[in-house]
């Protein structure tokens, strides 16, 4: 019997890891795109995710009329749109006023700025959003109940429907983004800028537009992630951006920073490392964060190009 329980736990943790990986993936795509184009670790990207979640909550609480709150077909899209709008606006302001003036300058300055933006956004939400000093409850926004998948040995893996939606939506959005970047005109401009910004400029690409677009796409995905994360956790807090942002950065590096496919695969790896590490490695869930940081250090030291990235050119 013990073995059966064990098998169920294993599969349940794998499922949990995939769900977490989907959230991380939605953030990691933004990290990897921005880094691919302007070689900036946008430290504040996790905060965009957090701001998105609060934007979704604000839309639900203050904008959505009372009678639609229980109707997920209206409430969920409304919250998503609100979140995306807030995230995108935040990211565009951030790019315009914090990062753009420093572009082309020394490398450390934008990183310190990004750190400042991150702390600033976190504190701004904490101080200015009503009651945000404590974790806030978040509506479920989707049908109740759960998907039960039987596993060999008799047990069930239980996934609430919002988690299923999250994973599906994350994969769909990632594929859509990949197609957009590979097929569309602006996508080509993005790839050109990532490869060689100066040459792209000579070919008629407007780098400012491409960079803003990159921030916008990343922020929109992060906003979607923020709402779905809140909906399945049923609670949000201002620290969620920092934590998940670091996970997402780790995922982007693990997958090879600049690679969209790598970011998603890296995110699922990180999700699995966290849940399985918390379950099976010494120290349990108390140390699950530590394993992610250990992976981050090992990847950066021994394989900075990640799983799918190209070997680094000389970095200044």
């Amino acid at each position: 019997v013990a073995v059966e329980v064990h098998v169920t736990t294993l599969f349940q943790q794998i499922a949990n890891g995939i769900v977490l990986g989907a959230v991380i993936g939605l953030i990691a795509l933004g990290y990897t795109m921005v880094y691919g184009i302007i070689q900036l670790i946008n430290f504040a990207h996790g905060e965009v995710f957090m701001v998105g979640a609060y934007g979704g909550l604000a839309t639900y609480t203050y904008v959505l009329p009372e009678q639609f709150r229980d109707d997920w077909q209206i409430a969920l899209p409304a919250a998503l749109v609100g979140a995306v709008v807030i995230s995108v606006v935040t990211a565009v302001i951030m790019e315009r006023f914090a990062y753009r003036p420093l572009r082309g300058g020394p490398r450390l300055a934008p990183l310190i700025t990004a750190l400042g933006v991150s702390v600033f956004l976190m504190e701004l939400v904490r101080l200015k959003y009503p009651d945000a000093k404590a974790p806030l409850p978040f509506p479920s926004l989707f049908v109740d109940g759960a998907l039960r998948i039987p596993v060999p040995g008799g047990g069930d893996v239980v996934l609430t429907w919002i988690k299923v939606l999250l994973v599906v939506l994350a994969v769909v959005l990632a594929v859509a983004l990949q197609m957009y970047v590979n097929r569309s005109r602006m996508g080509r401009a993005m790839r050109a800028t990532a490869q060689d910004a100066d040459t792209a400029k000579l070919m008629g690409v407007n780098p400012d537009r491409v960079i803003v677009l990159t921030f916008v796409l990343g922020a929109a995905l992060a906003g979607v992630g923020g709402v779905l994360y809140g909906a399945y956790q049923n609670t949000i807090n201002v620290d969620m951006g920092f934590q998940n942002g670091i996970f997402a950065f780790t995922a982007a590096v693990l997958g090879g920073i600049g690679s969209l496919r790598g970011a998603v695969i890296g995110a699922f790896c990180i999700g699995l490392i966290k849940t399985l590490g918390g379950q099976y490695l010494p120290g349990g869930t108390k140390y699950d964060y530590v394993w992610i940081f250990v992976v981050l250090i090992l990847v950066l030291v021994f394989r900075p190009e990640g799983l799918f990235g190209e070997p680094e050119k000389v970095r200044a």
Partner: protein
Amino acid sequence: MNRLTSWVRPQYAMPMRIAGGVLTVVGALMAWATFIFNSGAYPGKATLQYFDAPFALTDFRLHIALLGIAVLVVGFAPLAGRNRILRGLGWGVIAMAVVHLGFMIDEGGGLGAVTAADSVAFGGVVTLIGGLVVVLAAAGGGIEEPVHLPTRMPRYAAWPALLVCFAALLLLVSYTLTAGGQGGVANPYSGPLFLSFVGFAGGIMAALHGAGVLPWISRLSEEHRAFSIVVLLACALALPFTDAGTEYWMTVAANIGVYAATAIGLNVVVGLTGLLDLGYVAFLGIGAFVAANLSGAAAAQFDVQLPFPLAALVAAVVAGIFGAIVGSPTLRVRGDYLAIVTLAFGEIFVRSAQNDIGGLTNGSNAIPGVPPVTLFGKGFNEPLTIGSAKLPSGVLYYFMIVLLVALVMAVFANLKNSRIGRAWVAIREDEDVARAMGIRTGQAKILAFMVGATLAGLAGAVFAHKLSTVSYESFKFLESVTLLAAVILGGMASIPGAVLGASLLFVLPEKLREFSEWRLLLFGLALILIMRFRPQGLVPDKHRRAELVGEDAEGKSLDEADVGQVHLPDLGPTTKEAT
């Protein structure tokens, strides 16, 4: 600003100076607040209701009047660098007016607090306009080349001059520390009074800098280095004998000292070597936990009580070893990736400390009851009597921390001018070129991490005994950000900058009860704004800062440098090589 100043023709400068000065004085003589606020009447008898004797100036209105009179005097006197002086004074007036107006509007709930149609409570607005007019007049008059005062003088003249200057500095520090008094509910206006005094002192300092006095002191003290160091140290040790000699201010000063020492240690890594360390506070934590465990506290893992110097030494060594471990990825990782690696190490430390790893940190219960340091049977937390002077408790810690900061400064200054220091600067400027020049960059970088961590470990040992409780909460990521903000605000690789930065960031929460809530928000904003507008910091290092300021931008922006600016002909042989 530039667009504005282009309107001001030189021939308007004189009338504008006079107008600005008069407006400032008149503003100071007027009432500032129209009614009594909820927190009580505004200090300085500035409320209309109490405003019976306009010429009995006290407090901040006196300061503003003094600045206004200074503007008028300088306006008529044919001084060298007159417009530079005026510009400094004008900004001082503006800063003071903005601070008070902001607080009054906030307290009074709107513009009605500072203006009223039927009364004369326009003081703040008039003063603000006066300050702006002075700054415009200074710009319109044409900002001169920096004034260069000769320092060639015999020792019997130079030493007393330096003595007077440093004594003035001591008084300034003492006044600044006590300005507005202790913050809190009982004293709601400590924040604006303190900030306004900082504005006043800043205006005077900027004026002195414009007159060439501060650079002159800086060069003079450089020429009489040993004497200056002795006098400065004596001044720092004399602080308890001034108004600031109460238990509260000694505690504040000692806390600032601990963080200043740590910030200087961080400056070795970030400022000199150009490696961004986002997990630096972990070394302070390691030092503190090691010292706490060796102190004989009840919750300590080891049942030993080492004498403090020994414990501090062990703490420093252990932190240094961890520094080498954290620094080892620098062999393979560069730039922003390295920053993330250090962040990861910092997070691993906090997580482990929170979970009481190996029973060493006592988790969220912290290690309480770390005994105070004792010397000759006297606890450092007790009051001290020297002759007839009774000094408050905590003063011995203050003395110890002053010596610690002095030691750290000495280590930093000597390292900076040594072979390894020049190697660090070379790595900061261009690592590949440094390697090509024969510098063993790997060793040098690990050594930088080790030195920085050792200094932090030492500070951590003091921290543990001083606070008597060591908790992982004190070493979270945001503390690293705060330290980094201190270093960057003050100016990278600059010793006075690190001390100034640490002082600002740790005094403000003591003064402003509102500020403790807004602290981190403002730090974040400060990081953004400094990187955007003044990447070299408030007190820039004299070396070229290619890592943060472009080489072209450098000459121009360093022209604005406040203190510690050394003109090229005075550069010593060592600094020349490093530049």
